[in-house]
């Protein structure tokens, strides 16, 4: 089983968080594994098994059971890293050197995509699908990780 954590925290101004991966539906179609989505109420459901609003204990137990996971830059990548369960993080505008963990596979399309000031509110940054790696690259990393 693979866990996906598709969304970063919702922004206060209602705009799409620039860290949210735009190609989840395409990526999910490519993955030949049972997938469990984790997140909170109000987020778009992408797979049949969507576990919302889990407690930290519940989330931890689920993470411990999974083969691996895929996430955008959000709480989840830190949480799973802390449990020593490493996965794939899909980056765009935030810097994996600062906010990531080298134990994970950190997929960043290009450092030129990073915003200049990493420490402002994300409300100021526009979402841009072109700043993310394509699903094919994610799948290659997933397959490599599982072999």
């Amino acid at each position, binding site marked *: 089983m693979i866990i996906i954590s598709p969304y970063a925290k919702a922004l206060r101004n209602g705009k799409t968080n620039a860290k949210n991966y735009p190609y989840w539906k395409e990526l999910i179609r490519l993955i030949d594994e049972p997938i469990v989505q984790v997140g909170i109420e109000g987020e778009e459901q992408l797979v049949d098994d969507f576990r919302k609003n889990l407690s930290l204990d519940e989330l931890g137990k689920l993470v411990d059971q999974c083969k691996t996971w895929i996430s955008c830059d959000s709480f989840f990548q830190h949480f799973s890293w802390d449990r020593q369960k490493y996965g794939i993080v899909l980056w765009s505008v935030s810097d994996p050197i*600062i906010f990531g963990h080298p134990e994970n596979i950190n997929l960043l399309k290009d450092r030129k995509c990073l915003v200049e000031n990493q420490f402002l509110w994300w409300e100021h940054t526009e979402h841009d699908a072109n700043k993310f790696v394509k699903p094919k690259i994610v799948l290659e990393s997933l397959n490599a990780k599982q072999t």
Partner: protein
Amino acid sequence: MDKVLCSIATRGRYQTTLPLALNAIINQTKLPDKLVIFDDNDEPEDVRNNNIYQHLFSIMDYKGIKWEWVYAAKKGQHHIHQSANRMGYDWVWRVDDDAIPEPNVLEELYSWINDDVGAIGGAILTLPINPDTSKNTGKIEDIDKEPNIQWAEIKKLKEVEHLHCSFLYRAGVHDYNLGLSRVAHREETLFTYGLYLKGYTILAAPHANTWHLKNPQGGIRSESNQQLYHHDELIFRNTLAYKDKKIVVLNVGMGDHIVFKRVMPDITNAEVFTCFPDIVPGRPISEAMSLFGDIDQWSIYKKMAEWKWTDSLENAFRKLYL
């Protein structure tokens, strides 16, 4: 050579002591690299039309002192000092607008600069000079028991824990507490004691006398609301009460809390304030705000922006707290 900014905040003293203070600054034996005047008047004037100021500005130009006149936001002098603190100079010499430093003051204070020093203050004298401060400790724990060491001539160099009024300080390493009210009661004590807590030496230096005229008219602290003083005094007392603790304030997201967990075991005697006690146990953030006024001094994101940080978040926490 380290660059020195001279900063002076003024209010209600255009026609009285401000020109005297400016005159004293531009006649120092060591000149500052720049003079910035923060004008906090309710009805600011354009003093370029004033003959006396025209001459003073001309002398600054002639002597090569860069100067800038800034209209301040009337939020209190701690905001003004924080602006000066972050103007990119190595040192800031803060001078009151009714203080007259003798010509050697900046040179004397500057002569004590070394890598360990955070601030140096000379005597701040008002006649008649009453207190005998020769046996003062200058320690924060004695602040209620002894007159300030700067209120009499300083005979020999002494390490202290706090300064007041006018002094030279290392810029950009510690923030003024912007949680104080607009009267900014105790702001300089909190600031210099904060430098001390960061491990810097604070010095009371001899032969650097400033005459404080204590002009009853005007002044940056011309405010009589006792509630504001009470508010600031509470912040000051709380800071003292926790002086032996390492204050940790995690006003950040869940992921940041998880990263911080790796740093926590290396912090001794911590008092933790947290948004997510199920991840990092501690007291509510709201308590930190009411105790210390300003919690931005523990904002890891603000610090990383200031440091132009390019290393990991975990190492940023280490820099802030270890």
